[in-house]
């Protein structure tokens, strides 16, 4: 045991860094322990030999909340959102459709949809805005509700009833629990548009457009849209977070994997590293997913039995694989104008297509026709690849974590199928591939330690949201173990590159420290 620490943060993922920065700014002597050689966790830069770099698993994101940017002075440390992009729904016949904040563009856009889209988007953005108090704060407890939580609920109620107005409130209450399939079918006629918005809403979750609750998942994603336009995150953004944390006084130790969170008499006392080194601290904050935190780092014997059982039931199996492509030249998609190549490109041409891609995953099979989510980060950042070369990042859905038959041969056959599918949309792309890397959910779990390779550290379903995220008894960032807190995507308000769980956790820790 060495010097005394106020707080240890396990994992230098973006939420861990945000949390550490806030704690350090409040004067806590904070140490961040990270097993990888660099910061950012799943959002950290990833490279393929030959000088190809990828902005981590997250290849499109909304900017961080203005509050976090301001309070942590992120921009001063080099944080800058990428250039705004739109989303393009690719069509097999080369007649694509794009949409973004401004509206729909592209070929064969039905008049009705062009008219319905802007009010639709604005309405859902207004829903997202109305729900902001809920996302911005610790989830309210429903009994023995402290004043802070009542205040959250009051602000939420005010937003719903007064700001939204009666009819919009009714509509939000109606759609909050239902599925994207119904909402989109009621609003639009174009299959490309419906398929792509549905894919955007559910990507990363084991849900299909017909799964009830997917509107809520989408509203969670749209929280980010309140901060600014969609972009490909720049490779320096995680470094900026790390610098901000360090500038605030936190220390980050890389290549320092935590093996165990030390617990004595029901209180966390620090962490033990894989090397055997023990570090003592008053507080331990875990950015690791909740299930791994409790079952592996803490150990179920330290917890009550039913709590441990509920930890085991946290649902979340990754369903998105990653295909990273190093390309010797800029690819061309049939029918896609050059300026749109930098968009988020989705192969999700209809609701039924997405639905079918999901069906196979339920039975542990690879999909015949996967949903693809494509970005080419090197278009905006030429440093990511050797001159003239490009990197392409493809999210492939739905690839189940538990395959009925898991073998290298099947995996490479599926990779080939994905590349062949890409080639249908971008003829000739296959010949441009210098190198590729395919990461199944199992690979993602192995590389990043995220439970079952799930992007969001746990499904963003209603029964795992708000005061139920990741599970009641640990939903307000504090846990049954005294001095142990959660700060990762597994906590409210969940996944995506938002930093909100990290900030909410830090606020809660500091607030509890006061009382």
């Amino acid at each position, binding site marked *: 045991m060495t010097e005394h620490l106020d707080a240890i943060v396990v994992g230098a993922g973006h939420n861990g860094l945000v949390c550490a920065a806030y704690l350090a700014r409040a004067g806590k002597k904070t140490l961040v322990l990270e097993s990888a050689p660099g910061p950012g966790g799943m959002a950290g830069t990833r490279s393929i030999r030959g000088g190809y770099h990828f902005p981590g698993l997250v290849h499109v994101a909304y900017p961080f909340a203005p509050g976090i940017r301001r309070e942590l002075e992120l921009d001063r440390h080099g944080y800058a959102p990428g250039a705004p992009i739109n989303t393009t729904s690719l069509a097999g016949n080369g007649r694509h459709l794009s949409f973004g904040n401004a509206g729909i563009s592209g070929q064969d856009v039905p008049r009705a949809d062009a008219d319905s889209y802007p009010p639709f988007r604005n309405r859902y953005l207004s829903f997202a805005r109305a729900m902001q108090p809920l996302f911005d704060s610790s989830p309210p407890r429903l009994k023995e509700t402290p004043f802070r939580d009542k205040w959250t609920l009051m602000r939420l109620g005010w937003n719903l009833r007064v700001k939204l107005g009666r009819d919009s409130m009714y509509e939000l209450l109606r759609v909050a629990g239902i599925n994207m399939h119904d909402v989109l079918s009621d609003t639009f006629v174009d299959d490309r548009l419906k398929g792509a918005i549905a894919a955007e809403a559910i990507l990363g979750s084991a849900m299909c457009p017909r799964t009830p609750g997917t509107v809520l998942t989408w509203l969670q994603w749209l929280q980010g849209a309140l901060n600014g336009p969609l972009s490909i995150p720049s490779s320096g953004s995680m470094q900026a977070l790390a610098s901000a944390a360090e500038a605030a006084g936190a220390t980050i130790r890389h290549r320092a994997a935590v093996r165990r969170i030390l617990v004595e008499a029901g209180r966390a006392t620090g962490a033990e590293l894989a090397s055997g080194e023990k570090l003592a601290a008053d507080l331990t904050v875990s950015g690791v997913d909740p299930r791994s935190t409790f079952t592996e780092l803490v150990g179920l014997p330290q917890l009550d039995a039913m709590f441990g059982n509920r930890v085991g039931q946290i*649902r979340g199996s990754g369903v998105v694989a990653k295909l990273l492509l190093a390309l010797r030249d800029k690819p061309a998609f049939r029918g896609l104008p050059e300026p749109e190549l930098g968009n988020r490109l989705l192969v999700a041409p209809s609701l039924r297509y997405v639905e079918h891609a999901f069906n196979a995953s339920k039975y542990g099979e690879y999909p015949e026709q996967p949903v693809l989510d494509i970005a080419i980060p090197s278009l905006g950042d030429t440093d990511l690849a050797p001159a003239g070369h490009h990197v392409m990042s493809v999210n492939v859905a739905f690839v189940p974590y538990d395959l009925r038959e898991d073998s290298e041969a099947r995996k490479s056959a599926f990779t080939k199928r994905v590349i062949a599918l890409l080639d249908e949309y971008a003829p000739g792309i296959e010949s441009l591939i210098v190198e590729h890397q395919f990461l199944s959910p199992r690979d993602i779990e192995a590389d990043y330690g995220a439970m079952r390779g799930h992007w969001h550290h746990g499904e963003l379903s209603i029964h795992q949201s708000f005061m139920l995220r990741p599970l009641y008894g640990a939903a307000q960032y504090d846990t049954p173990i005294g001095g142990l807190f959660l700060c990762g995507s597994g906590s409210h308000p969940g996944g995506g590159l938002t930093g909100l769980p990290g900030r909410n956790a830090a606020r809660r820790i500091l607030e509890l420290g006061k009382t």
Partner: protein
Amino acid sequence: MNQYDAVVIGAGHNGLTNAAFLARAGLRVLVAERNPYIGGATVSRELHKGWKYSNCSYVCSLFRPEIYNALDLGRHGLKVIPLVSSMTFKQNGDYFGSYSNPNVRRRELMRHSHRDADAAIRFDADVLRWCKLIRSFLLRTPPDPGSLRPRDAFEFAWLLKKFHELSEAHLYEFIRFFTMAIAEYLENYFENETILAHYSGGSIIGTGLGVYSPGTAYVLLHHAMGEVDGNIGAWGFARGGMGAISGALASAFRSYGGEIRTGAEVTRILVSGKRARGVVLSSGEAITARVVVSNLDARRTYTKLFDETDVPPLLLKRARQFKIRGSSGKLNIALDGLPSFPALPEGSPLTRGHMHFTDTLMRLEKAYDDWKDDRWSEDPYCDMLIPSQYDPTLAPPGKHMMTVFVQYCPVEPEGGWTDEKRDRFGRVVLDQIADYSPDFKSLLLHAEVRTPRELEDEVGLTEGNIFQGELTFDQLLFNRPFPGYAQYRGPVRGMYMCGSSTHPGGGVMGAPGTNAAREILHDLRKNDTTPEEFSDD
């Protein structure tokens, strides 16, 4: 004289319940029914000579004892006999049975999984807790979250109080129960595949959702919260078929001076000066009334019975978007004798209850995948009963009547329904039964096959949805059928809804009709003749 205090459109069980309470309050009430028979989907008909088919709804558990008691239905001839069991055949020749005797039930669970037998105690306690909670909401009008009236505020306070009686952990557990998929919810308790499939089945009955769709755990309650003589969870069968329920309700209604006209199809609700004035029949005859109550589903009511100009555009849009999603089919079968089921030991009581053939969650989910693609399930989930074993009124002596509810069946397969497709659908079901009963086909005398097409055409259930609208979050409580219209009142004064499209929804329960009557009587400043819920404490 064509002038009434109230006219109720449709003689379904809710329409009759509603009418009975109105008549009991002294109103002059007419029930207008399109079909030549009453009952709507609560009906028993002789479609094969000597056999009585309850060819829509086929069991009841939800029918509220308060209504039974208030309308004195026992004296009007209703007898509800408890069903004793349910079971699922396994593909390997074995079966799982859920017996009513607690000792036998436990040992059967133990036969499949000792752990599950113990977990069933926890499961029963939890489900019973949610039943008790939800049951207390059934005979109440949901408060309107958009309203600032004291009555709604009071009702919200009452709801909050009810929830506050739960411990904090139970509150969270209830939200989980309310929002989870049945399969995942049951996996919190059970490990045996057959047991999981058996208890999941009830949650997909009548709904366009699969066992892994969030929100289906709650549907379990719609099948588990009924009661027959206080045994929560027990199913009952009306002696004489489901028609006996509508028969008793009609008899009670008539005893209060009510009038029923069959073969009287209402084509339009008359509106003038933002007020309902009566109805017009297909014959052209106009009937005037101070109050018009529709027992039809919400979409049908607003899109077919109103002039478009009489309905606010937003309401019309909501009505068109109302999620109905028919997903079920039904077979009614006349048998020359009792079919044998070799998997069951001689004398097993399990033939007297629900029988199922789907023994894994994956088979249930795959059945749903077919429906998502507008096909009927090739390996459907069937809920089969042979009620003639204990109800002698259903078939000639020694002969039997079988009812088979089938999940899933699409509203419209690709290219639309034809009689040939309907029969192919029926054959899939008959083949499935024959797989477990070798002599079944040789006993077959007559089979009526009903797809959503038949259910819509004959009964008037849009898309053949048995609940008059899905029981999903967007269509429950103050959202049922639409936000702002959940208190049984329509868009014009004097017009009301009383069918299963309204809170608390589907099942032969009578609660929507009762709640609507309470609101109507309140508006007319009449004495409330509807019952309060029996206390659970």
